[in-house]
């Protein structure tokens, strides 16, 4: 299956969901839905977070799984945390602008 695009290829703005389809009965739901925050992360970052959850949040286990050193894995997690914080700020800013 092709990867879910989260950014507009033309203007780089955040994409939203306009239509959802049931593959079974072809029912279509139309609207304007925000993409969840986690979906906005890169697929590599999502995979990292899934692995991290599977390791019960243990950086040591994560390092062993990825065959990388502990600080390398921790630094990667810190990068993702920073990105999530940045995304949260963007979402809050967008919501504030909309409410005006």
């Amino acid at each position, binding site marked *: 299956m092709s990867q879910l695009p989260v950014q507009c290829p033309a203007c780089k703005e955040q994409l939203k969901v306009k239509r959802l389809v049931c593959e079974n009965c072809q029912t279509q739901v139309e609207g304007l839905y925000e993409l969840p925050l986690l979906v906005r992360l890169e697929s590599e*970052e999502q*995979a990292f977070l899934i692995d991290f959850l599977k390791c019960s949040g243990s950086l040591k286990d994560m390092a062993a799984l990825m065959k990388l050193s502990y*600080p*390398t894995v921790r*630094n*990667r997690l810190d990068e993702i945390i920073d990105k999530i914080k940045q995304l949260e700020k963007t979402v809050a800013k967008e919501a504030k602008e909309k409410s005006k």
Partner: protein
Amino acid sequence: MNEQVIPLKKNRLIIWMFNPFMYIAGGQALIIGLLVIVTTGLIGSLGNVHFDGVLDMHPGPVAPLWLFFAEGFIDWLSLAAVLLVAGLIMKGTSFRFIDVFGTQALARWPMLLSAAAGLPPANQRVTDELLKMAQNPNQPLSLQPVDIAVFAAAMIVILIALAWMVVLMYRAYAVSCNLRGAKAIISFIAALLIAEVASKFALWPLFKIISK
């Protein structure tokens, strides 16, 4: 597991050469690093090569084995302690002390090459002649061409190993304390200079003991 979580576009060999801390840190790096320091001291004692400062390496006087070990440990601890403080001041996130000490110990491994390069007796002969010339500039140099060639080759190896070690020390600091950019470079240079002075002060009393 997705193997692409951390892209490994760089050649693995290059990463192992210049940033092994991507794969090794903590206790594992500490054990290997301590073995490196002890081995460097042993090889240094065979050729009377002294590491009398974080970045220093000189042919020197005959000394007891303990001094060669002490030099390595003081050099390592001086820099690791100063970088730990620098990391705590500069930190963006938390880090483990064992990563700082372990990776800094491992970063000293190019000194093994330096110690080995300093082994040939030709180095000592050239150094002695140069010292004599410095004390009495009118005295002509009496050196064999082979000795000069060996000394020149050793100097090249030592300089490359020194530059390599500094790169490793910086990478170890950046990975252990999760620092990047100008903040990491400036704090590393400052820490290196402070540690160099601190190690000289710490080693000075030991050299006084053996000179008695």
